[in-house]
């Protein structure tokens, strides 16, 4: 092939290279800026929440300790204690995890490893579809079905309770957990399965001893995302929690988690009351960070 007849081509190439390198540099800057946007948004949001939420403690002489450990929340009487809500949030989250995670994971395993392809092909997208149903409707469902069910079958005076919240949250977590976990289980290299089966392990043994541990990081991501959904959820919870201001001591107590407190009262709140709701947001935010850190720890420990 001739290399020589192309001087024209070569010079064309050389002249365009300069422009290309410039574009290259420029585009990298643009991409960097785009990725910094999420940092900027986070900083703005954190800044905003903290600015509003720390004001009462710095400027108005409220005690942060009393805020965290106080038992009374009566904004009209200047009492701002959120301990019952913190406890409620913790219980509700843990409960939802205990129910939602195993069912979600087992379903994901089922879809990825056991279900016939034709079935999985229908169910997986259906589960994804459910991730898009507005949470209000989950709440309505909880209020119209779960709450009366609890009232009638547990003989409760009111079905709005910790257990109702746990059930609704567990249901809401399912689509996220199933979808993300299923993807990561499918991504486990075939060689692990082959290796295990070739050692005479049964398919089920292989799943639980090799495949699931190998998919650990994806499964952790599934749990974290599901957890985010559970903690961040408000609209559904408002409807089934009962929102009572008591320190929960049993599954049948009605509770008020941190998120519902914010959503419930923000519409009417002003002044210090509003700032205290932002302070609730800070607590919620720290709560989420701590949980994510803990889960990451568990994940990395298990991953080893």
């Amino acid at each position: 092939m001739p290399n020589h007849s192309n001087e024209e081509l070569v010079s064309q190439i050389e002249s365009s290279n300069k422009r290309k390198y410039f574009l290259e540099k420029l585009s990298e800057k643009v991409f960097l800026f785009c990725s910094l946007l999420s940092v900027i948004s986070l900083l703005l949001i954190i800044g905003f929440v903290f600015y509003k939420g720390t004001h009462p403690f710095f400027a108005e002489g409220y005690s942060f300790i009393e805020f965290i450990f106080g038992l009374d929340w009566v904004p009209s009487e200047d009492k701002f204690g959120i301990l019952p809500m913190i406890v409620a949030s913790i219980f509700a989250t843990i409960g939802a995890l205990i129910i939602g995670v195993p069912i979600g994971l087992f379903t994901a395993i089922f879809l990825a490893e056991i279900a016939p392809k034709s079935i999985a092909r229908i169910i997986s997208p259906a589960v994804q579809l459910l991730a898009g149903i507005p949470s209000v409707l989950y709440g309505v469902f909880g209020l119209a079905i779960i709450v009366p069910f609890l009232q009638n079958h547990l003989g409760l005076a009111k079905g709005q309770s910790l257990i109702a919240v746990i059930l609704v949250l567990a249901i809401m977590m399912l689509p996220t957990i199933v979808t993300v976990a299923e993807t990561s289980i499918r991504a486990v290299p075939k060689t692990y399965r082959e290796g295990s089966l070739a050692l005479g392990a049964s398919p089920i043994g292989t799943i639980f001893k090799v495949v699931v541990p190998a998919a650990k990081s994806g499964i952790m991501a599934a749990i974290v995302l599901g957890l985010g959904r559970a903690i961040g959820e408000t609209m559904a919870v408002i409807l089934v929690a009962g929102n009572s201001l008591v320190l929960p001591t049993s599954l049948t107590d009605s509770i008020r988690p941190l998120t519902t407190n914010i959503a419930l009262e923000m519409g009417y709140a002003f002044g210090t009351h509003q700032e205290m709701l932002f302070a609730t947001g800070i607590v919620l935010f720290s709560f989420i960070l701590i949980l994510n850190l803990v889960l990451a720890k568990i994940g990395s420990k298990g991953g080893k």
Partner: protein
Amino acid sequence: SQDNTEAEPSSGNQYTLAISGSTSVGPLAEKLAEKFEGKNAEVNIEVNQIGSSAGITNSLSGVSEIGMSSRDLKEEEKQEGLAETIIAYDGIVVVTHPTNKVQDLTLDQVKQIFTGEVTNWKELGGDDMEIVVVSREDGSGSRDAFQEIVGYSSGELIRSSIVASGNGNIKTTVAMNKHAVGFISFEYIDDTISTVKINGVQATAENVLQQKYLLSRPFLFVNKPENLTESGQKFIDYILSPEGQEIVSEAGAIRVK
């Protein structure tokens, strides 16, 4: 306000009147706006139901020209120069499950129920079953008014009470629980719940107007006087006109006069 007035259309350009606030006043305001727009094509009214305080904040910050409130203004808010107009009254009715035998309560009994002094329907002449109290959220206009008239404070409210956001949620909650008792606005009364007489007086608009029935509160429009445009004033005037007040009572609220 002059600038705003100038922005008003003479040339078929619509002026948008922004109103926001109480979710209780909202539906009524929407109905009034619908009729008003039918008559005044040059005005387009936006009604946002986002809660009394948010509405008041918006009217202060200028995001909305008029705020809607279902509670009285606080001192601080008045000091910022907000003007208020009562556009209607809202009757509040105590509601129970349709199977509940208790049909009549004294104001004092209501207080005892909501403060937890009485915890069984038996003590009020009903069946032997626990009372489940359903209240609105702290800060809600209905709740403020209800507590003030019945005579207890938020701190006294029984701790285990269910707190539901909005009339609809109280209604749904009470309709689904035979133990429950709550309070809602007149407009939301229907046959899924049963209403309770207070001191023997039926909850009706007439009884409120004649001051026989005690549980009511005002629906307010608030605004910074300097922000109120001609259109805004026109709308308020319309509401207070006999025609506007007719719509008010059709919607289930209580006319001002």
